[in-house]
């Protein structure tokens, strides 16, 4: 019995995240997200091909600035994401719980996500030293190889691990200077949208991470085939889908990163080789002489 003095809660509109802004999908479409009792939790944007294209444009535009930002700065920004997430911990636990996780599991997942951000924040100025080389060529040249970001990366975030899996795939890409366009878990999209708000509050430059919600079946082909995307990360274990992704990826020789069957909660699911998967090796030669 709500009395006349009881307060009506303000519910959040879940929107997508493109170029540092939170628009609704340009298509105007939505799909209802239901809880296990069939009650509607929220209306979710059903992102379109055009939303994806706009996101790629934003990601490409953000790439020169982000990839040339200092490793120290990228590390601090990723650390800042962790700080912001820690501050909104209760909200994320509640959202995961709302989407079917037990309170205990939800809490565990949020904590692990924060720790994962800290882990990669620390790698920002170290992976380069681990993976680079000075090469002892026989001729009179100074020759060295360094890591550089591959470019714009499509990320089909895992369906089942909607927050930890999402962050575990975004962060190794951006800590290495890539920009990305991400498709959130279709079944549990809430945390992805709220995580976009966290990114925004953490001063991640607009366009570095773009997050869409929508139907996998509709958008996977777009993520795989776009000619201005340099790499695609996917986690679906469906082999037919994987095959389709790899066929489309060949249109512009995309790097294909297959992360199926990964238990994101495990400690071994975080390592610098995940950063390396969206890095290019650049080798530079210069004569030694006078």
């Amino acid at each position, binding site marked *: 019995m709500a009395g006349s003095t009881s307060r009506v809660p303000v519910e959040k509109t879940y929107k997508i995240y493109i170029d540092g802004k939170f628009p609704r999908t340009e298509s105007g479409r939505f799909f209802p997200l239901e809880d296990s009792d069939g009650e509607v939790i929220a209306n979710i944007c059903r992102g379109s091909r055009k939303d994806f294209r706009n996101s790629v444009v934003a990601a490409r535009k953000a790439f020169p600035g982000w990839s*040339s930002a200092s490793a120290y700065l990228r590390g601090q920004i990723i650390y800042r994401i962790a700080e912001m997430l820690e501050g909104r911990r209760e909200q994320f636990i509640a959202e995961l719980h709302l989407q079917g996780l037990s309170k205990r599991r939800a809490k565990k997942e949020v904590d692990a996500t924060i720790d994962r951000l800290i882990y990669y924040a620390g790698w920002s100025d170290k992976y380069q030293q*681990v993976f680079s080389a000075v*090469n002892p*060529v026989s001729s009179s040249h100074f020759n060295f*190889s360094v890591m550089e970001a591959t470019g714009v990366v499509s990320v089909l975030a895992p369906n089942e691990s909607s927050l930890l899996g999402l962050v575990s795939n975004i962060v190794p890409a951006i800590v290495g200077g890539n920009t990305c366009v991400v498709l959130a878990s279709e079944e549990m999209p809430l945390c992805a949208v709220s995580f976009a708000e966290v990114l925004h509050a953490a001063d991640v430059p607009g366009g570095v991470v773009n997050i869409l919600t929508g139907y996998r079946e509709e958008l996977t082909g777009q993520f795989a085939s776009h000619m201005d995307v340099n790499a695609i990360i996917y986690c679906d274990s469906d082999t037919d889908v994987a095959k389709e992704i790899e*066929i489309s990826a060949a249109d512009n*020789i995309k790097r294909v990163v297959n992360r199926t069957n990964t238990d994101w909660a495990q400690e071994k699911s975080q390592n610098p080789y995940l950063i390396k998967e969206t890095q290019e090796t650049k*080798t530079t*030669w*210069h004569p030694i002489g006078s």
Partner: protein
Amino acid sequence: MSTDPSKLAFNAGWQYAPAPESTDHVTIDEQYDLFIGGEFSPPGEGRYFETINPATEERLSSVALAGEADVDRAVKAARKAYAGPWSKMKAAERGKYIFRIARILQERAREFSVVESLDGGKPIRESRDIDIPLAAAHFFYYAGWADKLEYAFPGRRPHSLGVAGQVIPWNFPLLMAAWKIAPALACGNTVVLKPAETTPLTALKLAEVIQEADLPPGVVNIITGAGDTGAAIVNHPDVDKIAFTGSTEVGRIIQRSLAGTGKKYTLELGGKAANIIFADAAIDQAVEGIVNGIFFNQGHVCCAGSRLLVQESVADEVITKLKDRMETLIVGDPLDKNTDIGAINSAEQLDTIRSYLSIGREEGAEMYQSSCEVPDTGYWCRPTIFTGVSQSNRIVQEEIFGPVLAIQTFRTLEEGLTKANNTPYGLSGGVWTDKGAKIFKMTQNIRAGVIWANTFNKFDPTSPFGGYKESGVGREGGLHGLDAYLRLES
């Protein structure tokens, strides 16, 4: 003939006497079979094709055309060798076999150089001083990695993959075979390799070396054939890894056909590298770099500097000096030690190059070729430059794979960079300037895998090679080249 004393005119007054490399110490068999399981055996369907000398159009030998059944036989031999001796052998012993290959190649270097020039048309100076020594060096370098792999990948345990299927091009026949085979063996894999259709001979000679080195049968299998043979290797279900060097067009087909198979792959594909000359460069050195960038190996180089971007204020000077230098280039007999530019590798490739010369002119560019004489028989193309081209011209966008240079100008560093990166390729690039800060500004921002600053077209076994964007996936050479032949476990 030029009488202007300011011009380079090495051949004015003094003529180069012919200096042919002798061929009498080289034997090429009448016919070559397939090298499978440590022995040469005839192809199942009994078919052979000819390989010719592109400088004379004369037949050199016939080589076997491997069909699907032959590919299967080679893969089975490789699998057996992998399961049997090779993956169980101590890594240090494996390394010693690879060292042996390097040593025998060094011993037989001159023979290989001559065969390489006969079969492929490249100048003997290049096969003698670059291709063959580098191929031996590759085996020597990777041999030493065999028992040290765990030091290459911190925190990981490396494992071999199994059978590697390798398909290589005709521009550096033996060197590409070495790039593929050496790291594959060092990492504990066995190999099925197919050399290019027009240049099979040094790979077949390498098979002899592998016999001589007494490698266990089946560790390296070398089978000849054309595109269908390559496709059969790529599509064979018992191959664990594919390594391909060739065109982006074929690379795309391979990437598609590997979709969903879980096979690991590396692709070294096409390029359209910008060679960027700033006004403050040492101009004479830069001109040498341009010549080396585009005319090295008849321009049959995926990382060739096929686009010249020259800063506007020195464009006239650079182009004048380039034309003068082009006049001194000797085009002709690949076996002559004075030859700078040899024969185009095949009639088919010459057709491709000629079609681009027409396209360039039709699109409005101005073509200039050196005035040198070329032999009547064989496949030849004079060194060629195009000026007055725009970014959208096909000769600027597409890989020609011949001695054809498209020249554009730029004013600011940013404009040069934008033009350099305006391509779907990203294999290599060149920068010429005397300013250190400018070098790093450029080398950091050119989106390509190999950047030469104040030099061009240098290669070394320790130096990773491979492209960004549509120039390929993965690296070959150096520590980074090991990754392609290993599975890393945590």
